[in-house]
């Protein structure tokens, strides 16, 4: 092997190999960084709503001054819902069930001398729209604990408005999960106390959610007359929140959406597009660098073709003659992979710092498997092509038969 290598390494152009190396490294780093960056940053846009499906929109009817006077309904009728369900962009429609009873809730922290209480309301959506562990998101009659999802804004209101101005301690999400809300429910001549357990926070949903099972039971238990109320909000799962037809449809019907949801959908969509473009460029560079390597190896084989031919004639098998070049390319590709992963990890620490500063609530560091798997697959694919091309070229020299 050593003698064969001594022969074959002649005419290896370090310049060309370095060119390939740098180009392939760039391509690979861009592709892998694109994947990892998307993995790391996309939670920023879906932050806090992990319990909600991503591509959904909450729809309400417009409340206008005139409408209020003439008593125009702001609830959705069966016909409205069916109409929405029939739209091509709709995957599913869920109803918000409003509560038919009175709710007030309070936080009592006696050791702090703090007692807050407020009148409020509950709503619920079908369980399939809520992705909290179903064990936590469950209610059975007789249970005194009610899981609740509240808007993150409420916490911010307290932390940055109320607590600051009153000199009260700020509360983190972790702590508030341990705090019990005292929930007082009255209606239908009954009044009971429950313990509210905060099961999650939402950035995107401006309501206080309780499980559907609780709502169904409580509406009957505390409700007046059991009349079914029409929902005033709908939750619509769409295939693509950036679809133009959605905005158009809502405009025509005079429906309103809570815009940031569409925006978040759009943002993630744009993030996908941008990352896609960047990765496309990376892949293109990778392909071009692969081309450089192939040209370089072909040139090398061409320059050494007499020697290759002679080796074949004195009894060397094509596979054996091709081996040094195959090992060379596999070695280079592997080195590129290792360096790329190293560089991605390094760059990642830099941008993760920034991301974590900007979004401290973000759980830092998502999985790197996808990036690693993609890198390995890319390396294997490129190496396999290299090996095949070298083998083909050597066989070509064999078949030319002098």
């Amino acid at each position, binding site marked *: 092997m050593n*003698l064969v290598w*001594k*022969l074959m390494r002649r005419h290896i152009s370090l310049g060309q190999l370095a060119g390939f190396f740098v180009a392939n490294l760039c391509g690979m780093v861009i592709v892998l960084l694109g994947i990892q960056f998307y993995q790391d940053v996309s939670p920023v846009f879906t932050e806090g709503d992990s319990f909600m499906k991503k591509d959904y929109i909450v729809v309400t009817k417009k409340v206008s001054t005139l409408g209020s006077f003439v008593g125009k309904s702001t609830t959705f009728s069966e016909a409205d819902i069916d109409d929405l369900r029939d739209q091509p962009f709709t995957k599913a429609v869920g109803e918000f069930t409003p509560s038919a009873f009175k709710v007030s809730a309070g936080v009592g922290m006696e050791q702090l001398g703090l007692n807050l209480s407020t009148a409020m309301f509950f709503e619920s959506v079908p369980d399939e729209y809520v992705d909290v562990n179903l064990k936590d998101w469950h209610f059975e009659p007789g249970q005194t604990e009610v899981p609740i999802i509240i808007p993150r804004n409420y916490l911010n209101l307290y932390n940055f408005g109320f607590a600051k101005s009153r000199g009260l301690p700020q509360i983190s999400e972790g702590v508030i999960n341990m705090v019990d809300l005292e929930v007082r429910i009255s209606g239908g001549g009954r009044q009971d106390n429950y313990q509210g357990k905060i099961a999650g926070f939402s950035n995107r949903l401006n309501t206080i959610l309780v499980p559907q099972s609780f709502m169904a039971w409580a509406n009957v238990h505390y409700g007046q007359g059991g009349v079914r109320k029409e929902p005033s909000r709908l939750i619509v799962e769409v295939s693509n929140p950036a679809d133009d037809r959605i905005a158009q449809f809502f405009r025509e019907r005079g429906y309103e959406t809570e815009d940031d949801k569409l925006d978040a959908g759009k943002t993630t969509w744009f993030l996908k597009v941008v990352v896609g473009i960047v990765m496309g460029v990376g892949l293109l560079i990778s392909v071009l660098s692969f081309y450089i390597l192939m040209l370089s190896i072909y040139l090398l084989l061409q320059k050494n073709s007499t*020697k290759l031919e*002679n080796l074949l004639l*004195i009894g060397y098998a094509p596979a054996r003659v091709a081996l040094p070049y195959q090992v060379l390319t596999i070695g280079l590709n592997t080195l590129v992979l290792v360096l790329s992963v190293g560089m991605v990890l390094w760059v990642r620490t830099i941008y993760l710092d920034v991301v974590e500063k900007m979004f401290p609530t973000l759980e830092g560091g998502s999985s790197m498997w996808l990036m690693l798997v993609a890198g390995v697959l890319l390396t294997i694919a490129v190496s396999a092509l290299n090996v095949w091309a070298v083998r083909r070229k050597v066989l070509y020299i064999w078949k030319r038969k002098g």
Partner: protein
Amino acid sequence: MNTITLQKTLPEVFVGKDHIDSDIWHKDVEFEKGHFYLIEAASGTGKSSLCSYLYGYRDDYQGIIGFDGNNIRNLSVNDWVNIRKRSLSMLFQDLRLFTELSAMENVLLKNSLTGFKKKKDIKDLFFELGIGDKMNVPVGKMSFGQQQRVALIRALCQPFDFLFLDEPISHLDDVNARNMARILTEEAMKQGAGVIATSIGKPLELDYTKKLLL
């Protein structure tokens, strides 16, 4: 491999020629293991073509060439690799040595593939052929006559049933030519192999069974 047969073999470039006066082209010829053959030829009669057909690196001929009765056109790449390692050895007219490697390295390149000879035996051959002092000289710096001897040593570093010698002594003096003939004969006898030598003038002096005119 015991026999090499040529049935009506003719290089494609000769097709259409009115008259071919040859003991080989367009005839039925058989070479047998254990016998020595001399093919005498004028230049341009297809001597090197014959060698390249028999050694499997060209196939621009008509007719059939068979090893032990099997048409060699049906041999796979692997078959040829094995044949070149174990059954056929060739001393090329243009030698096909690697000029940047030393004489010894050239021989070892082959011997490491076959593991046929001990390094000491190889060294002995270098001395017997009068190039014992050139073992570590790059082949590119040797004369053609010296290179011919290196190529011969390389050709002997494998088991073979037939040894092709394409103008083996074109650049050798009589003493070296006789040396070569002696070593060749010894090696061929030891292996019970056949030898097919070509010549356009001064032939290698062997105990030929048959002389053919190409």
